[in-house]
Structure formats: C-alpha cells, structure tokens
C-alpha cells in the first residue's frame, strides 16, 4: 500500500512539463511582440553593456522572478527598465556602505558585488541558481563604469546621478615671490543618466559661490567670476567643471547648473535636465561641498 501511494505521488508530481517555448523569444515573450528593425548595433550577438540589453538578458528573465511581483525581494523591482532605473541607480543598498548602483563605480555598487559573490554583499545572486556567465558580469560592470546610462526612450527624467570632485593646491612662482597665500583648483565631474547635448553650455551659465569663515561663522558669500570657470565635456554624459583660484580661506562652495534664467541643459533627445529631482523636466541643480 505504501509503495502504491509512493508511486502514485511521484507520478502525479512529475506529470507537468515546462513550456516548449514555441513562438517565444529569449525572454519568454512572444516573438511578434518584440520584432524591431535591427540597427547596426543589434547585429552583434550576446549581451551588451547597456541597460536595455541587460534588462532583456538578465533583469527580466532571471532577476525579476524574485525581484518583481507583489512583494519584490528587498523592495527592488527589476521587472521593467523603468523599475530597474528607479530601484537601482543611486539607491541605498541594505549595506549602508554601498549604493545598489553607483554610476562609474562597480566596486562601490552592491549589484556588482552581489553578482560576483563578493563576501561584503552576502549570498551570490541569482540566489540558488548558477552564477551569471562572465560576459554578462562584464557587461554589467562596463555599464556601471560608463555611468549607468539609461536608454533615451526610457520614461524617466534626465538626471545627474553622480558628482565627484578633486581639490588641489595651486602654488605658483608669483605666490612665492609675492608671499601671498596659495589658491586652490577644484575639478568637479558630473555624471548624467542620459546622453546629453552640452554644446550650448558656457562657463558663464554655471554659478559658483564660495563661503568664507568670518569670526567663527560661515557667512561671507562671493561669486566666482566666470573667467575662473572652465567647462569640459568628457563625453556625451560626463561633464567636467574646473574652478580655479579658490582662496584658501574659503570653507564651502556651491555650484548651480540648469538655472532656468540663464541656461537649460538638455539631453540629445531634447529632454530638459530634472535638476531639482522632482520628477519633472527643469529645475536648477545645486551641489554643495565643504572645502
């Protein structure tokens, strides 16, 4: 009797089978739903270091089985490009040391640590499944290194996703001869989430204020003249701003971009920068640093 029950149970349990996949693409979606005119880039085979390709090859077919649905694991819904953008880029991870994706920095991105099985990030993802192929991991790494760009057509605002800065001391011969204090050079790098059109942006459209310490309180505000500001487009999504001759007594600096009274920064698809991060186009972007 027991053997009979056992055999019956096994028969019942294994009677289902997986789908044949007829008429479906590699993501399990109907082929006629995803037919697109191929572009030159689409001729290449395999995953590419852009979010569209990563979404189609990794996030949707693999990750979203847990990171999707009613209650996505860790509140991280990766079931669509819009959700992936909202839940990954510059979002705090469960480890306060890391962002889930920090544009430009794979090693500071929890996503990359997770898929590589780094001990700092706990269990390797995908959980309970084989590790991702090395070319997939490299594509994700490269996407992050390149600034975690999002597709032009994605229904998300154009934003600055990361700002980094480097402060150096200028010690010139004139300073030594004149016995004056040396000044400082600040190089700030702005990472945009979309391909941008920087051609119309000039140094006089960037507002830089410095604050100085006066009698123990920070209060004196000076505007840096535009002649001391230089802008440089590193590529279509990275902008560098150099501010020279910052006096040593300056203790803080504020830089403002996309002030609608004097300039508007737009993406190559014509979308205005969402500087104030309110989800709508426009608004000035202000960034403060302590010197």
């Amino acid at each position: 009797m027991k053997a009979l029950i056992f055999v019956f149970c096994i028969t019942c349990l294994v009677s289902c089978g997986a789908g044949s996949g007829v008429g479906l693409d590699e993501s399990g979606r109907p082929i006629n739903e995803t037919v697109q005119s191929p572009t030159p880039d689409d001729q290449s085979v395999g995953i590419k270091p852009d979010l569209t390709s990563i979404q189609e090859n990794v996030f949707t077919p693999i990750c979203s089985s847990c990171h999707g649905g009613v209650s996505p694991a860790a509140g991280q819904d990766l079931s669509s490009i819009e959700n992936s953008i909202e839940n990954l880029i510059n979002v705090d991870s469960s480890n306060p040391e890391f962002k889930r994706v920090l544009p430009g920095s794979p090693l500071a991105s929890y996503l990359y640590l997770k898929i590589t099985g780094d001990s700092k990030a706990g269990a390797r993802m995908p959980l309970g499944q084989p590790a991702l192929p090395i070319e997939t991991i490299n594509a994700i790494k490269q996407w992050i290194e390149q600034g975690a760009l999002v597709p032009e057509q994605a229904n998300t605002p154009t934003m600055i996703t990361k700002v980094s800065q480097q402060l150096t001391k200028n010690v010139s011969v004139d300073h030594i001869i004149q016995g004056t204090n040396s000044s400082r050079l600040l190089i700030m790098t702005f990472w945009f989430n979309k391909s941008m059109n920087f051609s119309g942006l000039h140094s006089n459209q960037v507002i830089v204020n410095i604050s100085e310490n006066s009698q123990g309180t920070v209060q004196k505000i000076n505007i840096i003249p535009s002649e001391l500001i230089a802008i440089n487009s590193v590529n279509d999504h990275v902008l560098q701003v150099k501010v020279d001759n910052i006096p040593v007594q300056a203790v803080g600096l504020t830089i403002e971009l996309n002030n609608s009274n004097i300039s508007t920064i737009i993406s190559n698809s014509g979308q205005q920068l969402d500087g104030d991060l309110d989800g709508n186009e426009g608004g000035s972007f202000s960034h403060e640093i302590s010197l």
Partner: protein
Amino acid sequence: MKFHYKPSTQQLRDENSLAKTSADTIDTVNFNVFQWSLLLLFFITTWAEAEPYLAIKNNMKCAVCHVNPNGGGLRTEFGRIYGQNILPKQSSSYDSNQLAKITQFLSVGADARFNARLQRDDDGNNSQSFEIASSQLYLNVKLPDTGLSFYVDQQIAPGSAINREAFVMYQFANQDYLRAGKIFLPYGLRIEDDSAFIRQATGMNFDNSDNGVEYGFNYASGTVNLVIANGTSQASNNDDSFLYGIRVEHLFSNLRLGASAVLNDGDQQSQLFNIYAGSQLGDFTFLAEVDLLRLIPANGDTKQDVEQLISLAEVNYQWTAGWNLKLTAEYLDSDRDIAENEQTRFSFIAEYTPFSNIQLRLGLRLKQDIPQKPQQNYDVIFLQSHFYF
C-alpha cells in the same frame, strides 16, 4: 523544567488534542502528559511555518514550535524539545533550556546552513562550490506579566549582518496578538526553501520582510491574520499606499485548509490570492498550494495586466525517526496570456537527522524552463548541513 521524555508523534497528537480540551481532562492524565499539555497550552499561539510538514504531520499550529507567529526563526521551548528529542534518530540528553534560555525572560537561538553544491545548465556551464547558505541568530525578550515581547532575527552570514525581523508583540489573554515592526507577512505555506516558485514569485519569503502591523485572531482550531504593511519591503513607504493582507487557516482532524489574499495598491497594483492545504496519512504528509498573481500596471501605462499561476505539491515520507524523504513538484506560468512559457521544478530530497541539532540534507533539483533560456534549465545536486537550536 527538565525533560528527558520522548513521546511518539501519535502521543504528541493526542497531547495536542488534550491541550485543547478542558482542565478536568488534564487532571486525569499522567505527569509527563500534563507537562506537555501545559507547554502546548502555553505555546499554542498562532502560526509559523519553517517546516510546515511537521506541523501538518502533528496536526498542530506551527507557532507551537516557533516564537515568531509567521514562520521560522527562534524555537519555543516545545520546538527546542521537538528538535532535540522527536526529530533526530538519536537524541542528546542535555537540557536545551540551559543552552537557549538565558533567563526566564530572555531566550536565543540559531540556524546555520552550509551547502556543497554541484550545478549544471543546458548552456554547458558547470559550477561546484561550498557556501554558507545562511546563518541567523535570534533573540526574544519577554517582559513578565505584560504580554509584551521584543523579537529580533538577524542574519549574520554570508556577508554583512542583515536584519530580517525586528518587532514588538503584544499577546492578549485569549492568545490573539498584535505585533508591529519589520515582519514576515502572513501568506500561504511558508516553506523553508526560498527558491521555491510559490515563495520566489510572490516575494513572500525569508529574504523579504516588510514594515507593518499585524493582528492575529486565534481560535481553537485555526487562525486569522490581518496585516497592513508598506508593500515596499523598505524602511519607508515610497508611495501613498499600503499593502493589505489576510490569511485564514483552519485545522481539521487530519487536514488543514487555508487561504490568503494580498492587495498591494502602489503605482502598480498587485493582487495575490492563494489556497493551500495539508494532510497526513500514515507516514505520509502532503502539502499543496496554488497561487494566482495579478499585476495591474499604473494608470496611463499601456501595458496589459499580467496574471501568473504558481503551484507547489509536496509529499513527505517520514517512516522512522531521523529520516524524511521529500518530493516536490512546482509549476510557474509567468504570464497566462502567453502559451508555452511555463516553468517547472522538481526536487528529491533525503533529510537525515542523525542526532539532536544537526540535520543533513541530500537533494537533487531539476529546473526546467523554455529551451530559449538554457541557463534557466539546470540541475543542482546539493548536500546541506543544518545546525539549529
């Protein structure tokens, strides 16, 4: 109290029945049974389901073995005794209270799972590894004469420490409870395997707690859980809506039936329903759950609703102390509007508990997806050691 008593599972069932009868009946039984009955009365609260087949096999509410009303984690005094004396082939004679009960009001516990895995997929990728699957420490502080307790479930490995649960619970005199904090939501059969389709696709797993408030109604042969939570699994709510859930479960003599419903009314509305059942027949224990998941895009989104169907069937054969054979079959249709996209997963697992507090599991899992996803068609053989107290 010090126990060196090893009742049979049938005795346990009888004693559980006793616990639900009148005090007059308890007076007539022997001292050992009286002790067990007191324990059962004390710990029969609500529901927990790290190994729901054990609860179904013994026809007990799962919270008999776990402090957490919604699954896994710290064991109650009875749960520790069960793991020490009933589950293993050979039980040890130490007093588990000396290990886990620091004071009358403070108890601790742990689970640690270490795996050796061998995987192969249809894309030709092979991998083999040793890994710490998970290690948790639990702590429960029960304030005397107040009904209040504070519970923490902290994952300490692998990687950095992650809090899984942290809540304050108030237990009413009638065993209803109210708890608030970071909690596992009450939903369906909370089996131990987080990678099971019913746990993965619904997000209702041990890797995914949420911040909210839950009220649990307790009656003699069942529970009703009501919950409201952020629905984001995050520290704060990122929209102006909440997740609402209800689970109802009733225990019959050899059968339990339950149903759950969840509505997560965020930008994208999600609806989730399930029915589940468990039954015991001799040495066999059967579990089944069917889930229907509906994802409704936000207003203005041109995407269509997605409806998913997920199921699990499990058979356990526990013919002698220390041994259990577990067979599971799972099915996932990730979009019911699309044909031939179904996934299946079959597991064959032998569980051996040679002595108290350690369980060895040897398993084979066969995951099948459509041929276009060769990496999602894979076989896994694993050997797991599970330390618990």
